[in-house]
Every structure is written in C-alpha cells, then in structure tokens.
C-alpha cells in the first residue's frame, strides 16, 4: 500500500447547470479513502450544487467533466444506484414525509433485514429513540433533523458521506453529539490507514471543525474552487478577513 491510498472520489473538470444557469465551472477535486474534506464558501457559491451533482439529483445537470467514484464514472447513474454503490448524503433541509416513520426510513437504509434492536441501538446513539415512530422530519427541531440525517447515514454506512451543513441550526449542546456521530460515520476512531470511509462536509461557520478533523479544505466562490489547503488555516482567514480575501486570491 502506498502512503497515499487510492481515490474514493475523483472529480475532473466538472461543470454543472441548473436549468439554463451554469452553477459550477471546471471543478477538480480528489478524496482518498479515509480522508475528510471540507468545503467553505459564501451563500450561493455552489456548495450544495456540488454535493447534489455527486449524489445525482437530476435537477443538477452535468454539462462537462466526470465524477469518478471508486474508479467508475457515475455521471448518468440514478441516485439510488449511487447510494447502493456507497455514497450517502445528509441534506441541509430534508423534506417531511407524512405517514413515513423515521423507523421505516432507517430500516430501509440498512437494506438487509434490519433487526429491531439494531435500529433502536443506533437511534439511542443519536438520542432519537423516541423519534423512531414519528413521521420523518415532521416537527423536528434543527438539531433533531441533523441527528436524524446522521442516524440514517449510520444505518446506511456509506463509503463516502456527503454532509451538507451538518451543524447549521444546531445549539451548542447538540453540536458535540453531531460531531461524535460524524466521527463514527467516518470511522475516525480508527487510525488513518485503516479507515475505509471518507467524507465531504459543507460548513458555513466551521464550528464542526472543533469536533471533526479534516485533512483538506476548499473555498468555493462563484462556482469555482479557488483555494485548497489546511482547513483550519482557511477557516482562520475567513474568520479574520472574510471572503474578501478569497476574492482577491481568485483575482
């Protein structure tokens, strides 16, 4: 095994449009097995678009480039096939589905015949045992929604987790638990070389970096990745100087 393990996700020259509007332009990005990367950027810069394009939501049209997951170009595959290949995504604002219980959706994530006790145990870890028999996302607080998303991903156990602002709307008390769940999801308890899971996390505030270590950070501005580097350094710059500094970089 090389020091650098193999790529789980390789994005090459990716351009993505929604309707007639081009949102992402020529994105290049490479995530290796076991790594966690974070994506910074102001509102409307295209962060969610990038995640949606990776998971394959049809509204987000790839107009150029490729998305290679575990060596295979997945552009054109439907969402569910990508999910079954090992990509999972937590949404920033997931929909409420009336009548569909959290338990049903967690059981579906496990795929094979899910044992009741297993689901209950997972839910207890996310402090959501009382939510299993409630309609999914219905009347959930901000923190409950995020934990429910992570509970579903833990059940799904994807090799690549795409997390869209997992800490937004979460109070301080809950953010540590969110961090802990993300670390479980990304196998952070294992040494780097043994980790099989990778993650790409969108963060607006960077709070999550207090709990989850990440290897690489990016800044996305106006649909282009303009910076790649140490996530804490990037965060410090954004905190002290705002995205103005990034615009300078972008020229």
């Amino acid at each position, binding site marked *: 095994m090389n020091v650098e393990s193999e790529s789980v996700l390789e994005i090459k020259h990716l351009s993505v449009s929604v309707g007639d509007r081009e949102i992402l332009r020529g994105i290049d990005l490479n995530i290796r097995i076991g790594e966690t990367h974070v994506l910074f950027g102001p509102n409307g810069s295209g962060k969610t678009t990038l995640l949606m394009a990776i*998971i394959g*939501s049809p509204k987000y049209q790839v107009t150029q480039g490729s998305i290679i997951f575990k060596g295979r170009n997945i552009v054109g595959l*439907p*969402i*569910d096939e990508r*999910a*079954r290949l090992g990509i*999972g*995504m937590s*949404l920033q604002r*997931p*929909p409420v*589905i*009336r*009548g*569909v*219980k959290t338990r*049903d*959706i967690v059981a*579906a*994530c496990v*795929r094979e015949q899910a044992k009741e006790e297993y689901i209950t145990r997972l839910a207890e870890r996310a402090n959501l045992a009382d939510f299993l028999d409630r*309609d999914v996302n219905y009347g959930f607080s901000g923190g409950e929604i995020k934990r429910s998303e992570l509970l*579903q991903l833990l059940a*799904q156990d994807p090799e690549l987790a795409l997390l869209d602002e997992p800490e937004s709307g979460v109070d301080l008390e809950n953010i540590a638990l969110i961090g802990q769940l993300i670390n479980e999801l990304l196998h952070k308890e294992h040494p780097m070389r043994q980790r099989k899971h990778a993650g790409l996390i969108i963060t607006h505030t960077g709070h999550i970096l207090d709990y989850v270590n990440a290897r690489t950070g990016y800044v996305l501005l106006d649909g282009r990745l303009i910076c790649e580097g140490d996530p804490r350094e990037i965060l410090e710059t954004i905190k002290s100087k705002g995205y103005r500094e990034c615009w300078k970089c972008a020229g």
Partner: protein
Amino acid sequence: MRRLNPERTAKDKAAAAASKPAAFGEDIDLDQYIHDSDESPYQAEPSQLPAETKRQMLQVGVTFDDPSQRSGTIVQIDHSTIHSLSTQQGIEVMSTRQALEEYDWLSDYLWKAVAVDVDKYAAHVELGQSNGYFIRALPGSKSIYPVQACLYLSKARLAQKVHNIIIAEEGSELHIITGCTTALKGEPGLHIGVSEFYIKRGAVVSFTMIHSWAPEVAVRPRTGIIIEEEGVFLSNYVIMRPVQSLQMYPVARCVGANAAVRFNSIIAASPSSNMDVGSKVLLNAKGARTEIITRAITTGGNIIARGYIEGNVPDVKGHLECRGLILGDKGMIYAIPELKGTLAGVDLSHEAAVGKIAEEEIEYLMMRGLTREEATATIVRGFLRVDIEGLPAELNLELQRAIEMSEKDLM
C-alpha cells in the same frame, strides 16, 4: 295511540320521491335493475361458505376463522340474512326484518336519521324488497371486539336494497366492522344501503366500513347519524378497489352537548372508477366537535371529495382535512371543503391539498438506496396511514391490513 290526522306515511313519502334524483352523483336509471331476489338458505356455520366467497369477505374484514375476535356476526347475501349471531351479552345482532317483528318500538327509529324522501334511492329501499342489519348495544354494555356485518351482492343486475339500524344505548360502547363486496364479475349490479345510527347519551360507536365492489357495480349508501350528549361516533371508511359509480354523503347531527364525530376516509380510484364521497357534520349543540379527514388517491379515476361542517351554536369546533394524491397522468381529484358558521363562537377550519408526489420526497428516499418504485410505494403507504384514535388496537391492525392488501393492487 293513533293520531286522528296521521302524517303521511313513509310509504307515501317514498312513493312521491320514487323518481327524485340525488343532489349529487350520476343519476342511475333504476329500471335497468332487477329489484327482487330469491331467498338464500340460512347457514348455521358460515365457515362452510364457498372458499372464494370467504376469501372475498376476508378482504373486507369479515372472518369466520376466529369467532373469539368478534362480538357478533351478520351476513346478508342479496336480500337474505344467511347468518346472524351475537356472542356477547348486551349486544343484539339480527336482520332488520326480524328486529321489526320483535320490537314494536323500532318503527320509531325508521327514517328518522335519513329522510325516506331524500332521493329515489332511499325511497326505493322503503318501497321495494329490502333487508339489512339491526345492531344494538344495551345500556352500559361495552364490547371490545367488533360486531362484523357483511353485505354481499351476488345476483347479476340486482338492486340490492339494505336498511340498517344501529342503536347504541346510553353509556354503551360498540364497535362495528362492515364489509361490502360482490361476486359479480363483468355484470352490473347496484347496492343501495340506508344506515341509521342512534348514538345515545355517553355512548361510543366506531364504525369501520370497507368496500370492495367491481367495475360494473354502482353504489349509493345513504347514512344518517344522530349523536346525543357526550356521545362519540367514529367512522372509518376505506374503498380502494374499482367501482363504476359511488356517491355517498353521510350526515352526522350532533344534537347533545359535547357530542363528537370523526370521519376518516381512505379513497383510491383506479381508471374508470367514479367516486363522489363526502361527510357532513352539523354541530347543533354546545361543545360539539368534529374532525373530517380524507385521503384520496387516483391512479386514473375521478374523485370528488366533499366535506361540510356547519356550526350553529357557540363553543363548537370543527376541522376538515383533505389531501389528494394524483399518481400518473390521468384522473381527477376535486376537493370541496365547505364551512358554515351561523354565529360568533364557532371555530371551524379546513385544509386541502391536491397534487402529485413531491419529487424531492422521492429523491430523498432514493438517496437512502430505495429505487424510484420503492420510494413511491413507501410514500403512498405513508399517505394512506391515518392514525386513528379511539379504535381498539386489534381493529386498527385489521384496518391497516385491509389497506395494505389493496395497496398492492393499486400500485
């Protein structure tokens, strides 16, 4: 005591209304149907019925395998009551014909909750051959298990006419499951069912009705419910199989303080089904309250989903909720929620939504690995899952089972 100037009899009124069309629904030519049927023999053991008949009855919640789960059974084929039995003290179950012979006083209950001259369908139940069931819970009697009633249409071209009387005496609790189905395949038939409910002071009645007809069968139920003080009436109605034409609009009148009514309806129309279904509640006593909840799905048929709540005294509360789901490119759902308040102090509200499944919901489930078809089925199953309060757990389970059985055909 006979009055010197008796009012016009029910027969007179019915005769005058014999060709009066209904307020809603396609007008059905009654002359194209046969109005009388031969008597079928009594069955002491309904479990001996033909397997296919039993299977159809089971689909609408009528079972003969485990009598311990029922507090009574009555089965009517065409116009013959082929079996009736009460297995619980305090509950009477018999045919309407027999009940009228046994109880002189019963005539006082005829055509009081439903007007005999409301339209020609009700009128013909009075004028022609008919039967039906009489179910009565004696004062204070409480049953956990439901009485099951089956109305079965077997003769081609028959207009099956039914007149049911249900009385829950003071402080009683009564659960009824009614399954209506038919043996007809490719032949026309008509079912006219008059049901009159009398919920006395403090009584609780749940009435779960499952319909499973056929594409050539027309159905015209006529239902009235009178609820006295502190009485509760809980109706659950499910129709998920094809029907040529269905029109019903049960009317519940809350006449006693704090009377409560809840109508839950689950309606699914496959192509060529026409359904005009609604519930009407008149809140005529202080503290009366109601909730009307409808879930309608079309896979190509037409549904008119009506709801009407009227508040005529202060401190009444009513809510109407109708959600319609259009699956596919054909079919129609027309939701007509109506509220009428005649003075300050009534609290009436409604919400209605008709549309297709949100793509966002399908994609969300697909992100969890479900195929598009699995995601759609999961959402539809959730849509049809109405949490029903006040129904015994067993009955609730049976209802969910009946819905799930039909879901497969629907999808």
